[in-house]
């Protein structure tokens, strides 16, 4: 049934999907590959422009993993075993300085407050935190963690970042590495020049450690402006990823590619339902802008 529906979607001119994951267990990885493998051709990053221009019978699927957590290594082993290419987007300063990122601390904080049945203060609501510049957000979350005695397990593979050796290994095995900023800053909340520098510095770090040009950039949380995307292109990126939750159409610019977010624990049915909803542009963008992406597309931006 799902393959009939994807064929129908394909007939409307929607060429394929780019999936945005963060961390998956081995079981989740296998389930996602099996579910998607029935109806999609798995493609690598370098095949994307060609597949957008020259559609084939089966829609394509490009898998991407954000944040560069250590648990991605296990996922990469399964992907390699199954012959599935993927892109890993790396938070480059986190590799050198493995202090937990703000959302790792925030996750632990929310868990602790829920356990104690304490309400989350307004200043710590996710919608508020995501509007703050990174330094302010990290400071606020770290202070709250100290206040509530929250500790972070830095060895947890879902929190610890991959090292440069791990990443060079992935690169040698044929996986594509892209940049995902220095400290997972939501770039539209940073001052303009700092945000532009962040894009170029994180891409330079990937290029330096892989001894190859950094070909892709993904916006943390999905928030972007045209100027930031152009900066990534100027620094050598061929593709720039957002979190606009739609299928890929041939007329979409490579500097603003949509990605559908799938999470750990999703069942086959849930994955299928989400992909169908994405084909109808019915999903909300997880970057906090709702369905504004429809309007942006209409405006031709």
């Amino acid at each position, binding site marked *: 049934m799902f393959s009939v529906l994807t064929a129908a979607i394909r007939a409307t001119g929607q060429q394929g999907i780019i999936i945005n994951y963060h961390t998956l267990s081995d079981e989740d990885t296998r389930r996602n590959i099996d579910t998607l493998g029935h109806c999609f051709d798995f493609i690598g990053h370098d095949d994307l422009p060609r597949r957008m221009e020259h559609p084939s019978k089966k829609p394509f699927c490009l898998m991407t993993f954000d944040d560069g957590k250590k648990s991605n290594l296990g996922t990469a082993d399964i992907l390699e075993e199954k012959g599935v290419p993927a892109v890993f987007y790396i938070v480059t300063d986190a590799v050198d300085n493995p202090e937990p990122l703000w959302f790792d601390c925030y996750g632990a904080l929310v868990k602790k407050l829920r356990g104690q049945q304490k309400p989350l203060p307004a*200043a710590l609501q996710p919608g508020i935190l995501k509007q703050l510049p990174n330094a302010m957000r990290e400071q606020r979350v770290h202070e709250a963690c100290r206040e509530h005695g929250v500790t972070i397990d830095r060895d947890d593979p879902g929190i610890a970042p991959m090292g440069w050796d791990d990443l060079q290994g992935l690169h040698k095995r044929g996986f594509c590495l892209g940049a995902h900023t220095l400290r997972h800053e939501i770039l539209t909340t940073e001052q303009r020049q700092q945000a532009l520098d962040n894009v170029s510095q994180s891409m330079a770090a990937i290029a330096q450690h892989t001894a190859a040009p950094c070909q892709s950039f993904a916006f943390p949380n999905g928030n*972007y*402006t045209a100027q930031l995307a152009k900066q990534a292109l100027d620094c050598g990126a061929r593709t720039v990823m957002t979190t606009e939750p739609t299928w890929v159409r041939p007329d979409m610019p490579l500097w603003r590619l949509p990605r559908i977010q799938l999470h750990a624990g999703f069942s086959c049915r849930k994955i299928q339902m989400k992909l169908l909803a994405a084909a109808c542009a019915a999903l909300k963008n997880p970057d*906090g*802008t709702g369905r504004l992406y429809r309007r942006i597309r209409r405006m031709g931006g």
Partner: protein
Amino acid sequence: MSSVAKSRKSRSAKPLRIVALLQGEPDALSLWTLQALARCSSDLHLVQAFGGPGAGRIERFKKLSKRHGTGKTLLRAMGSLTFGRGFHRHVQQQLDSFFDVDNLRRWRETALPPSILVPGLNAEETADTLENLQPDIIVRVSGGIIRPHIFSRARMATLNIHHGMAPDIRGMASIQWGLVEERADWIGATIHVIDKGIDTGQVLWRGSPHLAPGDDFAAIMFKTHLLAAGAMEDLLGRLSTGTPLEHLYQDVSPADSVYRSNLDIMDWGKLALARGYGKHAAVTLRTAIK
């Protein structure tokens, strides 16, 4: 050592004496500004007015009617009392959360000296207080128009953060006007010396926020004020190390300088149509994606 160098050295040894002028209880924006000022100087004094800015409501209405006409003034009053009130309450709640106002209030209680209370910012008592304090710099943190007998009390200058790109856009609600009239170039902030005109003084700094799809008015205001308070800290830091004020003057000569007062009831309607207080103001969206 030259006399100029000597005077710079003596100035840099002593912190700038800064007086912050406040109208009523400080909100999140004001507290954030105060925090920036406190980082610049250990000699910070707060002068806080609890009365109105000077004239009473009826007197003010008469004055505005004379200037803008009774009809226009009535429409503005209606706008403020209807849409304006709800809008400001919503924006204030958002800004309180962005700036973590509870934390700022705790900081104020422990880190700042008690305020010197005055009946109004333009009252004679305020002038006397400033005369006693002999400030190097006065910063208007909140409140209405400051009269010459107040702003002239600073040794160097009286400064203001105007939320809007002065002198291109002057007066009240400049950022809202930027959204209503789809002028992205009006969205930003200016630090200027206060003079007799409204937002006409020498400009020391101007900056515009990093606009993004999905920014609503509260988000724009937050980004703008962060930028402006940071710039104020930087400017005061330079002044305290002996940079002459005149060296900080910016050459801004707009083709057109526009003055706007408060939005009237029709303008609030236009703001709603421009999605100015929705999730995505049209002008910011276009600026961000083009």
